[in-house]
């Protein structure tokens, strides 16, 4: 990535973050945002510092993580339609989180662990189901299994929400639609703690992803330990998806839209694809959250609604292209 592109990317990220800080239930002019950020006694300081700053940073990190999950999964199954939501990981993580809340095992640190277990179970089940047709993994069968496992986990989630009398479960219904309404510095700390290791590991695997994208056989001959990397990548994506779902609910299609946009504009190898996808994914989700906060003021739309409205048409387009 050249220097001008780096400058362009940096200014895009800065612009998105500033838009995120200034938009909301009450639109703040940029001068107020600036005052609020640097002066604790400014009128806008509580709103900018306690509400918007954690929300915008969390949306950025979650968007980046979901984008990276999508890009990594797409390299794994060599198909641009792979994505944590479509592969059932998000719903598995959601089910884990809801079980944790319903059994009152909750606490901000326990929910991501339960979500992680849910995501791992979902990914194992999806993988097992898609091997039924034969020894070779067909990406379209894998996607179909993902959708089915996702629907099953969604049904169990709804059942638990209706049957449980734990106080947090009604709120669970709200955040499972996906949204950053409950963002806080604490939520951000929890997310960062769970997400930093898998993000670093995925970046570390980026070179091997380029090899695996060529095919298992050539990757093996070029010195990649395919099975070990594959296990590690699935674990990382499950952990990242779980951290996202546990802090802000199920948000689909970010992992589909963002890698596609980055590939068509930059055509990079995975080494630079993953960092690019992280930045662009962050910007994408920050802007989607801005729309969710401002489209129907004073109400908030779940941000998952907006990402799905953008993601589903793109999915249809990509599906036509891969089947041709």
């Amino acid at each position: 990535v050249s220097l001008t592109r780096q400058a362009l990317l940096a200014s895009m990220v800065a612009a998105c973050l500033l838009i995120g800080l200034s938009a909301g239930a009450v639109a703040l002019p940029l001068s107020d945002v600036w005052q609020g950020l640097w002066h604790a006694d400014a009128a806008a300081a509580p709103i900018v510092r306690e509400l918007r700053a954690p929300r915008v940073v969390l949306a950025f990190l979650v968007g980046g993580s979901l984008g990276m999950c999508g890009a990594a999964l797409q390299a794994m199954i060599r198909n641009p339609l792979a994505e944590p939501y479509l592969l059932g990981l998000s719903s598995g993580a959601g089910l884990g989180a809801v079980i944790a809340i319903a059994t009152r095992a909750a606490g901000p640190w326990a929910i991501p662990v339960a979500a992680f277990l849910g995501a791992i179970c979902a990914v194992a089940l999806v993988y097992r189901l898609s091997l039924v047709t034969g020894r070779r993994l067909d990406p379209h069968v894998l996607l179909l299994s993902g959708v089915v496992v996702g629907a099953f986990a969604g049904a169990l989630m709804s059942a638990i929400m209706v049957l449980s009398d734990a106080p947090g479960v009604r709120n669970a219904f709200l955040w499972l639609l996906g949204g950053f309404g409950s963002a806080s510095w604490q939520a951000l700390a929890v997310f960062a703690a769970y997400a930093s290791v898998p993000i670093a590991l995925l970046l570390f695997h980026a070179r091997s992803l380029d090899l695996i994208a060529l095919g298992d056989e050539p990757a093996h001959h070029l010195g990649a330990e395919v099975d070990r990397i594959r296990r590690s990548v699935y674990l990382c994506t499950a952990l990242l998806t779980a951290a996202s779902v546990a802090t802000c609910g199920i948000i689909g299609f970010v992992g589909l839209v963002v890698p596609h946009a980055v590939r068509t504009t930059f055509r990079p190898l995975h080494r630079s694809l993953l960092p690019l996808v992280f930045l662009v994914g962050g910007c994408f989700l920050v802007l989607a959250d801005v729309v969710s906060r401002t489209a129907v003021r004073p109400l908030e739309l779940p941000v998952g609604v907006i990402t799905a409205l953008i993601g589903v048409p793109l999915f249809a387009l990509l599906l036509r292209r891969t089947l041709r």
Partner: protein
Amino acid sequence: MTVGRGSFLSELVDRAGGVNLFSDVTASSGVVSIEAVAARNPDLIFTTTEEPSGFASRPEWQVVSAVRKHRFLRVSGSEFNRPSPRAPAAIRELAARLDGTMP
């Protein structure tokens, strides 16, 4: 989560002489952000749960001045959450308590 114009609770508050700050929400209930609550700056926040302290102690809620000053009005869920023959009594009780708490 707040109640909108169409809800029973909103009508109760109206009849007791109060104003529901989210009466521009036409649905019976909706999700709003903490920021939207802060912008409308309520005098009082109604709760039907045992203790509002669960969210009242969270740092992000301190933006709302009614939360900072701990101005909560606890109402009984069975009386206020559904239309019933006890509604007139609920309105009288609410009107009296509003008179008592408003500055």
